């Protein structure tokens, strides 16, 4: 993928223009998100409840399977699932967003980034719903209403920014390279095992703990768990690293998308 040697100023200007275009199309954004929610829940009575039921059921299975091996609580596993699902599902769905909306993109002018962005926003809505069963369980097992709870929206924003950055990269890549989807699927699987979703951090021997430290989702998950339970200590460095990863990935994704966005329509 070669690029023209673009003047940096022009590139920055184009990037910023794209942001203002997305804001100009905010009604469309609102529409895409509400359409997604409506279509998802319209047909099924269970639809609305499924968002909450699904992570619960997965958690149940994992808990039954692993509870003798790992000494982890129900809340630990559920929180891991909720956070991991946000990242994996939103990025996987956003990956195909340009291709799925190819007829629109080819017929009407649109700031294309709006598609992956709407996926992330929808995922944030689902995330909020899936917190309900979590809080129900927490109130049963004894929720500690500490001020750390305020970290929850912060974590959500960080994961959303990070996911959006990743989404911009994979969605753009897929347009040019069709096998991106399969490579990403496999990568996600490996990534999940490198994140302490259903196993405690402690079982990983010290010399391998660097794997966690290179994994942005580790920071988000740790902070999320720290917000919910006093057993997990809150470490400000984790918040900071998480934040850094979010911003850097968002910038990298934004640059990558903007550099290639004019060529996208030719490959759809």
């Amino acid at each position: 993928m070669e690029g023209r040697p673009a003047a940096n100023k022009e590139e920055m200007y184009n990037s910023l223009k794209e942001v203002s275009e997305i804001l100009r199309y905010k009604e469309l954004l609102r529409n895409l998100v509400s359409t997604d929610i409506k279509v998802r829940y319209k047909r099924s009575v269970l639809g609305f409840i499924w968002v909450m039921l699904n992570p619960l059921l997965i958690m149940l299975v994992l808990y039954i399977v692993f509870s003798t091996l790992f000494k982890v609580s129900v809340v630990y596993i559920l929180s891991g699932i909720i956070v991991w699902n946000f990242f994996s599902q939103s990025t996987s769905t956003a990956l195909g967003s340009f291709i799925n909306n190819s007829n629109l993109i080819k017929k009407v002018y649109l700031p294309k980034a709006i598609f992956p962005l709407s996926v992330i926003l929808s995922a944030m809505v689902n995330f909020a719903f899936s917190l309900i069963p979590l809080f129900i369980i927490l109130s049963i097992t004894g929720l500690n209403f500490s001020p750390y709870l305020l970290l929850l929206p912060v974590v959500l924003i960080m994961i959303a920014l990070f996911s959006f950055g990743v989404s911009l990269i994979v969605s753009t890549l897929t347009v040019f390279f069709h096998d991106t989807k399969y490579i990403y699927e496999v990568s996600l699987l490996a990534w999940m095992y490198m994140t302490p979703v259903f196993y405690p951090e402690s079982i990983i021997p010290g010399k391998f703990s660097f794997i966690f430290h290179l994994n942005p989702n580790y920071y988000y998950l740790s902070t999320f768990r720290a917000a919910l339970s006093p057993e997990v200590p809150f470490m400000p460095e984790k918040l900071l690293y998480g934040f850094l990863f979010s911003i850097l990935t968002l910038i990298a994704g934004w640059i990558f998308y903007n550099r290639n966005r004019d060529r996208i329509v030719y490959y759809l």
Partner: protein
Amino acid sequence: MNDLMIKIDGVSLKYRLARERPGTLQEFIVRRLKGKRVNYEDFWALRDINLEVRKGETLGLIGPNGAGKSTLLKVVAGILIPVQGELAVNGKIAPLIELGAGFNAELIGKENIYLNSAILGLSRKEIDGRFGRILEFSELGEFIYSPLKSYSSGMVARLGFSIATEVDPDILIIDEILSVGDEHFRNKCDARIKSFKERGVTILFVSHSMNDIKRLCDRAVCLEHGKIAFEGNSAEVVDFYVKSLNGDRR
């Protein structure tokens, strides 16, 4: 005075047809590692197009299939970015390149109006204000509360046209969609386009119907192989094109 609505200056556009384009990431990496270069073949869809359209003008674009008419419209609409040249557009564009872009069959007519209008760049307030007129023009009545999948293709087209023309653009781009619908609907479309002309809306019109071109357009341009073959008033250009089709070129 600045009544120049569209200025197309030396615009060229190419499609890159890679002979052995690496369609997969795997191939791409392997190639890079092997130091192979990809053979590209460029298809120039538009070549050095220079065109100016003034406010209130209705410009017709004609030419054989593959000449670049739709491509040129897409450049003006901002969908395709030319590799060379400059495009300057003064005002809001409503493209009638595909009616009902983004229509979702699961949603009802009203929801699709909001969705489609948003795709065309309208704000919620603007859509609220126009909803009544859209409904009226489409003549869909109570069907507006039924899901789109229950509509006939004519109904879908009517809805799409109603929405697109309520956008209230400065520049209207029409790409061969006027052939949709029955006589009654076509007359309504005609009347609406005429009212746009009266209001001073600039129109770019692509059609294969020479009658429509002569009837609706002041000026016309004939494209061939991505270049402007002839430009002038619509009767002249239609003449030129028809003659060239019959193998008799001036």
